[in-house]
């Protein structure tokens, strides 16, 4: 597909333009230090270059909490009449970082595996994504390069790479030129309204930009991810999980903010009339103590350490076995938002080191 050149100013007015036509989400600064994907607001300044990953990943717009799975009523003959749920509106997610793009891609894989999840897939079909390539690590928590999601661009309709240094905000050189790669027919439609010039040698420009990035990019594990995964697959590291579990609140924040966590709980609700209602689903968290409890009270993961173990292995061992991809994108959200400061990066590293040690 084609590639184009444009600058940030032009991209900004393009965004406002697109926002006239459809629901348009963009990262926006909260009152504190964080960002959130919110409907674009005309007073907002485009913070694409320096924003740190949003509180919730953009994938949650496709897999929303409290989603209606179906609603129903009993007709006069006592027959149940079902309806699908809510109508899905199209939306555009802009400024999605590569790590979050990979998150969405992994959810795509999960929800289309086996029996297809119509709710996710219908929303996904109506979601356009304009992704954004990172030129500097967003903060100290990021480890996207180590987690192999830097430069990830599958699933985006348009992928933007800044061709200038983004480390000094405001005093950017040249005229803040960006490369826009169009990856889908939908992207082709979107880019029509952008003031831009066609680019004939996108790969060279991109390679050059990538080469000028800081090295190493973000935090690096003690070993390549394949070796970590192998270590995590072994069971010798109980003491590491235990050590982190002692600090853990079992609050589930780490799950809920993760772009690749998709476990859910369903809830059936009856209306006051007693003959109509709905079924909804809610984000759930495997770190939450009741997650694996069954009727009769037996809990298959009653200990916090067992839950941490499950979470880490799910990201680095179990799901990769199924989908051949690491289910941690290195976005750093879980570490950034864990109130007690537990960082998956450290757990994974420590597990690796402890397994190494025990083998020596």
């Amino acid at each position: 597909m084609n590639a184009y050149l444009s600058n940030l100013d032009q991209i900004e007015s393009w965004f406002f333009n697109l926002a006239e036509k459809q629901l348009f989400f963009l990262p926006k600064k909260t009152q504190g230090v964080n960002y959130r994907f919110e409907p674009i607001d005309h007073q907002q300044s485009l913070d694409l270059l320096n924003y740190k990953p949003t509180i919730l990943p953009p994938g949650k717009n496709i897999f929303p909490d409290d989603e209606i799975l179906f609603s129903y009523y009993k007709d006069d003959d006592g027959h149940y009449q079902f309806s699908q749920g809510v109508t899905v509106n199209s939306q555009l997610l802009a400024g999605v970082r590569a790590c979050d793009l990979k998150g969405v891609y992994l959810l795509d894989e999960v929800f289309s595996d086996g029996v297809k999840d119509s709710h996710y897939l219908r929303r996904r079909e109506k979601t356009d994504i304009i992704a954004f390539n990172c030129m500097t690590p967003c903060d100290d928590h990021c480890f996207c390069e180590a987690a192999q999601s830097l430069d990830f661009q599958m699933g985006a309709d348009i992928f933007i790479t800044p061709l200038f240094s983004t480390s000094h905000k405001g005093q950017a050189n040249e005229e803040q030129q960006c490369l826009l790669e169009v990856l889908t027919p939908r992207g082709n439609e979107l880019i029509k309204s952008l003031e831009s010039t066609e680019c004939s040698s996108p790969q060279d420009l991109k390679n050059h930009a990538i080469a000028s990035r800081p090295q190493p990019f973000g935090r690096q594990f003690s070993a390549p991810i394949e070796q970590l995964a192998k270590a995590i697959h072994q069971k010798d590291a109980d003491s590491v999980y235990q050590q982190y579990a002692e600090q853990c609140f079992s609050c589930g924040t780490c799950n809920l903010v993760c772009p690749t966590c998709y476990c859910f709980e369903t809830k059936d609700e009856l209306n006051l009339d007693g003959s109509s209602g709905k079924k909804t689903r809610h984000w759930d968290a495997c770190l939450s103590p009741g997650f694996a409890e069954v009727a009769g009270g037996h809990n298959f993961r009653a200990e916090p350490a067992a839950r941490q173990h499950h979470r880490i292995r799910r990201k680095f061992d179990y799901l990769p076995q199924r989908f051949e991809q690491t289910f941690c994108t290195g976005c750093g959200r879980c570490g950034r938002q864990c109130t007690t400061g537990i960082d998956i990066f450290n757990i994974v590293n420590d597990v690796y080191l402890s397994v190494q040690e025990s083998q020596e």
Partner: protein
Amino acid sequence: MKTLSDPVKSNPYIPMMAEIQSIEPLTKNEMLFRVRLPEPLNHRPGQFVMAGLPGIGECAISISSGPESGKTLEMVIRKVGNVTGVLHKLKKHDLIGIRGPFGSGFELNDFHLKNGNQETLIKDIVIIAGGLGLVPLRSLIIPIMEHKSDFGRVHLIIGSKTPREALFRQQIQQWKIHPDCSITELVDNTDFQDWDGDVGLVTEPIHKLNIIEKNTMVVLCGPPVMYKFVLMEIKMNFNIPDNHIFIDLERRMRCGLGKCGHCQINHVYCCKEGPVFRYSQLTDLSEALN
């Protein structure tokens, strides 16, 4: 995007509504529901459905009828909580929501005397059921009994807590008349009631089994605590390959589709790859039998 090209039409969360044909109390807390489905399930033995009522909830319930039951579905439901409590209040002709069948289930072929093209002779089938474990296994025992000549010797060990909780006693009586079929019924405790079977745990008769180890298939289903002891007993007395031992597991389930994550046992989903597993699949799953 490869995954999204085929349009999704159906909503996998909407149940089909089945009419209750009969409800038969089996014990104080267990009832046999016989329902008529709008279309045949075409299930395999050992599979399960999500049963429940819209507005109330759903839970995983094993299919207890044989694979040839057509539009009729039999389930035994034990009253333990929310959904099962409400289901127990239903009456004949009421509707019940069913989704499924889900899960792997058993491949009857694995148990045939002549096992498919491998030509292994499966001479002995050992089925050990504890408590409610008999319910899913019944869907396996029924086809075996109905086509008994295709199968070898069948050894059933069926345990319950007390005579009051023993399930399907009449039907078990009928199974006994089949050739090459030994059935041991046990209770932990007679609790001062009449009981013509044995008293003891399901582990006790295992060492007495007269089987040809390498031509034997073993099937287990029961409460989580049972597995460890039964497996220990089997391993101590016989040399049966791990992939000839089947175990039926239970976990919390919400979707039945391998998505919600609740039934995950290490990297496998109980609702997808299970609930029936070969023991060989479970040996490196640390969470499976704990």
